[in-house]
């Protein structure tokens, strides 16, 4: 049994969710990884260092920049006959690419697995994580996305895999990348941060997120948000935590001015320690919070900043 994992990379190397996908794949046998884009020698070298990886397939071509679904799925389908399992992390890229791959292979994708039971059997959340379904696939090849928050990532270093170039494949030309408008931030990525502080509708406007920033700085935290805060334009879309946003499971999650709708809980309830700051003591968020503070956030946040600063 050999698995192929589609990796995502940036200037810092192999992204943490992809390293979690590798961790899931190592439970299934031998692991090969695919890395794609132009001028990726450095990223390929980093991929080769991932512990547990036996082979790195390098697709070095501009057609693979931005990991568009149409070309990359054609490549994965061409590689598929060598593998029993094809995996990627449940990220915007993984969700975009893997179902397309699955259809070409006449397989039903197994989305967002939280556990590997055996080679055919996996646990995945349904209904915003209100149920954990154990599912068994009868497909010849399993096409899987991996819930990064449920698997400890493999370390960035320690392995030494062989690399080999990807085969040339006929690529469709029906899609074109135009531009990206990425939020710039010095902070850790939401899905990789040890601490996450999220603001909700209670923040009232985008400017007030400045109250969160010094605290996030002191804790090395990523900043997230509820859907309501994103919809209202307080913060960019990629801040959204929840069933239909990002799934996080940090050591510490602080929810500020967030009521705790099921869709939000779905994205953070596996955090180790949850803190809620909300002026409504009936807010459902308190039912999952380890520490609840019933206080107006406009007094609590400056106090919290001061308290942390005086350490």
């Amino acid at each position: 049994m050999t698995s192929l994992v589609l990796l995502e990379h940036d200037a810092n190397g192999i992204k943490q969710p992809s390293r979690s996908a590798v961790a899931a794949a190592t439970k299934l046998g031998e692991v090969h990884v695919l890395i794609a884009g132009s001028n990726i020698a450095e990223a390929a070298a980093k991929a080769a260092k991932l512990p547990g990886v036996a082979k790195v397939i390098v697709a070095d071509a501009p057609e693979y920049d931005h990991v568009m679904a149409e070309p990359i799925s054609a490549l994965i389908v061409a590689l598929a006959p060598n593998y029993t399992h094809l995996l990627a992390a449940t990220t915007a890229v993984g969700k975009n690419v893997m179902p397309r791959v699955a259809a070409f292979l006449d397989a039903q994708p197994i989305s967002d697995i939280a556990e590997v039971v055996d080679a055919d059997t996996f646990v995945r959340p349904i209904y915003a994580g209100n149920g954990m379904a154990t599912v068994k696939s009868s497909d010849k090849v399993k096409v899987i996305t991996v819930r990064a928050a449920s698997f400890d990532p493999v370390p960035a270093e320690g392995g030494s895999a062989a690399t080999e170039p990807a085969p040339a494949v006929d690529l469709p030309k029906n899609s074109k990348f135009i531009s990206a408008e990425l939020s710039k931030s010095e902070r850790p990525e939401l899905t990789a941060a040890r601490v996450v502080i999220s603001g909700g509708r209670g923040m009232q406007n985008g400017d007030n997120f400045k109250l969160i920033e010094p605290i996030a700085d002191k804790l090395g935290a990523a900043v997230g948000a509820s859907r309501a805060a994103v919809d209202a334009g307080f913060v960019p879309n990629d801040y959204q935590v929840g069933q239909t946003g990002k799934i996080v499971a940090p050591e510490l999650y602080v929810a500020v001015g967030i009521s705790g709708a099921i869709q939000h809980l779905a994205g953070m309830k596996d955090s180790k320690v949850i803190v809620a700051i909300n002026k409504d003591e009936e807010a459902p968020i308190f039912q999952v919070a380890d520490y609840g503070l019933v206080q107006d956030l406009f007094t609590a946040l400056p106090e919290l900043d001061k308290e942390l600063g005086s350490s």
Partner: protein
Amino acid sequence: MKILVPVKRVVDYNVKVRVKSDGSGIETAGVKMSMNPFDEIAVEEAVRLKEKGVATEIVAVSMGVTQCSETIRTALAMGADRGILVESDVELQPLAVAKLLKVIADKEQPKLIILGKQAIDDDMSATGQMLAAFLGWPQGTFASKVLIEGDKITVTREVDGGLETVELSLPAIVTTDLRLNEPRYASLPNIMKARKKPIENLKPADLGVDPAPRLTVLKVNEPPKRQAGKKVASVAELVDKLRNEAKVI
């Protein structure tokens, strides 16, 4: 230009669902059902394109139990022109839905198919991408903005780091994200009018598709329950607890 909009009947997003005590699935008996929220956004986008004169006809398709016709009626009341119901007693997984939609698309020849990015019951987020593969079309998933010009569609997508814009040749697949639009409520006169709009009734066999599921659900468990913790009286107490009890800061 014709637009196809697949709409799924799901447990309403406000319902707090329960796992059945025998672990066989989620309790759906007597529970309020609605159109998948992302599909409402898809219908709304199609209707806006028709109002702008870009689209000429909107066909809503729903697959599953007989009552999916109600979901189609909702789409018709929002402004879709006609419906197609594919009735099936077996559970339809995204692979089967995508195969059925492929056959319907071959027959209907739409220029655009708009789906939800995710059904909030199975949380698969797969059908649109699979349909794109079966049709050999490009896909603009998780769309927060679409613009059609000539035989091209420009789609702004919500991705992990922010937004990404791609240009696709039509015909194409779009899947909707939350920020694409705010769906309208159907007015009473439109609900009345929708009753007269036609719905075609089909079975998977009529479309030559074997709908058998490939994933067998062995059991459904409740997720581990979190205990509500304690209330702290002040920020100082909170920081103390995080430092000395939870030891996370």
